[in-house]
């Protein structure tokens, strides 16, 4: 039923757009909101124009629960899905995603081979990265004229009084706590791998524990800042950018000790239109598409060759996107690369400890 409906929608769209009949259709699943919009503009529409195939866009809120249910019940309706790296690897291990031949990806626009063009960590057995996103912290510059400049300031309640917003999860918080305690970005996971390191991170978090407001959904931190509930908060950089660029909020991002990660395309095992989905994947991760996406949202393209093509914000020509990216050189100096394997191994234990720490 769903396929029929989506096919109908697809054909109607195709007719109304005045193009030839759609040859096929795929269902692409992503995170919704401004992020999905950027993909529709940069990937879906050009692909439809180029191939005549259409894309049905669906939203989800992360995690593998739905994919697992579809694959295990044998009724797969999703073709391609935008997942976090940790889920890409986990889903691959559990047979939820198809393996991908990375040599089939097109070369960069500058002629470099795909394997060299993508930033390190962009390939897993079953997935290809499209964007780099980051956990940063931000403050309202209309409230704090001389705002914080480093991660240490985030943990400094004397110099910068006020509530702090943090995600209710050990992820990124432990890394930032260690960075604030003076650990170099490159050594974070080495320190966190020891019991003393974990103790040290929690001890640092202890110093601000009483002033923390915990958030869970990505939409909350900009809201907390706007309501004046917190003086500064960690957040996903795209959300803060969106609040600034489209709603004119006076928020400022501090990039020190940002924790960055990639989002990836993966094709669901048993997808009804797997071949088309693979074609879409190749198309959408090409240099031009990734660069085009960056004009809608401030997530960095996963290909190096896209960087020179990144222009200005789609509705504001004077807002250059380059400096807004997590990967911009000025922002990247102290960046921490999220270590998927560390978290896959230790998240059960650290979640328990984090929850126990919260409850006491």
């Amino acid at each position: 039923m769903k396929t029929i409906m989506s096919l109908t929608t697809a054909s109607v769209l195709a007719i109304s757009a005045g193009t030839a009949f759609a040859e096929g259709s795929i269902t692409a699943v992503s995170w919704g909101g401004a992020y999905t919009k950027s993909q529709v503009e940069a990937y879906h529409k050009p692909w439809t124009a180029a191939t005549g195939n259409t894309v049905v866009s669906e939203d989800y809120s992360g995690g593998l629960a739905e994919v697992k249910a579809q694959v295990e019940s044998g009724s797969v309706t999703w073709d391609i899905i935008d997942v976090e790296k940790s889920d890409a690897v986990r889903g691959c291990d559990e047979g939820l995603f198809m393996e991908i031949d990375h040599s089939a990806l097109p070369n960069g626009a500058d002629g470099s081979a795909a394997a060299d063009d993508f930033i390190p960590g962009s390939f897993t057995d079953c997935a290809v990265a499209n964007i780099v996103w980051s956990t940063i912290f931000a403050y309202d510059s209309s409230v704090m004229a001389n705002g914080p400049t480093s991660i240490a300031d985030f943990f400094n309640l004397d110099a910068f009084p006020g509530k702090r917003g943090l995600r209710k999860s050990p992820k990124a918080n432990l890394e930032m706590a260690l960075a604030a305690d003076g650990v170099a970005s490159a050594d974070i996971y080495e320190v966190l791998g020891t019991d003393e390191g974990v103790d040290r991170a929690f001890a640092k978090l202890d110093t601000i524990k009483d002033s923390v407001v915990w958030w869970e959904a990505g939409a909350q931190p900009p809201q907390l800042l706007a309501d004046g509930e917190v003086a500064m908060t960690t957040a996903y950089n795209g959300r803060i950018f969106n609040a600034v660029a489209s709603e004119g909020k006076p928020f400022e991002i501090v990039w020190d000790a940002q924790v960055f990660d990639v989002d990836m395309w993966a094709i669901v095992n048993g997808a009804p239109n797997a071949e088309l989905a693979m074609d879409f994947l190749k198309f959408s991760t090409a240099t031009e598409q990734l660069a085009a996406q960056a004009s809608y949202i401030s997530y960095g393209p996963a290909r190096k060759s896209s960087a020179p093509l990144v222009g200005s914000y789609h509705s504001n020509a004077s807002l250059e996107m380059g400096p807004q990216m997590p990967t911009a050189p000025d922002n990247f100096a102290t960046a921490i690369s999220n270590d998927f394997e560390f978290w896959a191994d230790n998240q059960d234990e650290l979640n328990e400890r984090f929850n126990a720490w919260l409850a006491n």
Partner: protein
Amino acid sequence: MSDTTTSLVAADGTPLKRKLAQSLMRSRARAFGLALPLLAFILVLFVYPIANFLTQAFYDARFATLMPGTTEVLKDWDAVSAPTEEMAAVLVADLVVSKKEKTIGKVATRVNRELSGTRSLFTKTARSAKKMEAPYMEALIKKDKDWGDIEVWQAMKTASRVYTPAYLAAAVDLKMLADGSIVRQDEDRRIHVILFWRTLEISFLVTLFCFMLGYPVAYMLSTLPARTSNLLLILVLLPFWTSLLVRTTAWIAMLQAQGVLNDLFVVFGLAADDDRFSLIYNKTGTLIAMTHILLPFMILPLYSVMKTIPPSYVRAAKSMGATNWTAFWRVYFPQSVPGIGAGALLVFILAIGYYITPALVGGQDGQMISNFIDFHMRKSLNWNLAAAMGLVMLVFVLFMFWIYDRIVGIDNMKLG
């Protein structure tokens, strides 16, 4: 009477007694037939899924099914002596299969629950297991020195148990060691017992507040003339019919630092502008919002019971010289106890499983056990632990119910 020859017979000659029994039987069967759809519905969609899910609290065949050979050899291992070459060989064979079948993720996740940090050990080793050659123990250790660590093998032995008390133990902050003994969890990882107590504390306080606020309201409603009381009853029911989410969100707008209440405090000089009260995203917020949301469940049973208490009793008591207090305490109050029992039990049992409100306004110290069950269902995907926590909760509620029956008596309860 026992002499059937003299007993009455029906028109067709069968004894009347048997005829009567038959007809009773038929009407019972008809009544049962009418109730059958509901019974089947409850059994299929309520009892069965819950029972089925609860078995996950102590049943986990994942490792045993996916790594059959390893499970077999681990059975004979004493968990103390060094792992043998045979064990290593069988393990490698199982890893090759699970890599091919793409089940290695499930195996690795299962063992990682017993020993943190082993997930990547399994996925990494499985990737190169195909190329390994005898002696396998050396090959494994060459791949990763952790294979020489006896703890990894002990974790596998624990994971290979099909019926395991490990999850139930974890639900009450205990852990099971490889030899089957059970000890307390490390101090910095103890969380569930605190949560169970907090859930109880919050449920108890909410019930108490609902009683304190609801009793006078119900009394007023039951004594006012019908027209006024009907109007007021609608005011009680209106929030009752409003979406739970809407009411909870309204409390966020009311109680937050820049919210209505705090603004008023600042205007009246009760709080400094830069030092406002923390009324939400903590236990206070949970208590306020839950009390408001559950209040109708206390008022309605109280009201329906109070409605049936004849006012003449209190008048009679007073006419015989009782003070207002004595008349209330000795005459009126005992008659309202069935309503208190019903209301309190209703509020308490609803509160103990409350989930959305604490999730939204609970912050860090207003979270309840149901929020962690949800966490394990959706985030950590550890359904076994979620089932174990649910089972502990269920047993506890039944226990409370039994205590209640012993103290107040379950018959002594009226829902209206």
